[in-house]
């Protein structure tokens, strides 16, 4: 059982470049989320999707975009990366009872 798969696991990216973080789930959950985790700040929600075809903004959406073309995939795109987007990014989905399942994270460094 794979659960949530994120790719890549880590990336060093030049500032100004475009980057898409991939997230795939095999649990058929409707709700999916992207969080960033920074030391001392905990997890902050970037974008979410309650079901395929819909997305919503979280606490820190600026500089990021998402799409939800189908149930399984929820990619996160940085259109033009900046150093402040250096972080660990987690994708998650939640079951109908509200429990969330997380991927292993993508460690992104923008230089």
């Amino acid at each position, binding site marked *: 059982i794979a659960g*949530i798969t994120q790719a890549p696991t880590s990336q060093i990216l030049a500032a100004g470049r475009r980057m898409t973080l991939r997230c795939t789930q095999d649990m058929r959950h409707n*709700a999916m*989320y992207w*969080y960033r985790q920074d030391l*001392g*700040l*905990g*997890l*902050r*929600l970037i974008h*979410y999707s*309650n079901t395929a075809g819909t997305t919503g903004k*979280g*606490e820190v959406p600026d500089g990021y975009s998402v799409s939800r073309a189908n149930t399984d995939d929820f990619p996160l795109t940085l259109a033009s990366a900046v150093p402040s987007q250096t972080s660990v990014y*987690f994708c*998650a989905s*939640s079951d109908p*009872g*509200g*429990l*969330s*399942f*997380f*991927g*292993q*994270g993508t460690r992104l460094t923008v230089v």
Partner: protein
Amino acid sequence: SQQGEEDPQALSIQEGENATMNCSYKTSINNLQWYRQNSGRGLVHLILIRSNEREKHSGRLRVTLDTSKKSSSLLITASRAADTASYFCASAAGNTPLVFGKGTRLSVIA
């Protein structure tokens, strides 16, 4: 920010001792959840307590919820070195995404 807060930020105890972590949240909730994160890994859910429940147990874990104070606590009894991790609470309200606290870093010394 709608984030909750965990207290303490860091906790260091000896193996065999109990560890208590507290969480406060800001809005009315449907349920409150606790998650664990090992270093460099994703979060794993531990336990969910609904707003109409006051206490819940799972193995060595005991969670309490006080909705009048908007607070929850996680007690780990007879701690082990393998319990060393960060612990997060997350509040759930309606269909909105979970709101996570900043976490408590627990170190259990063998």
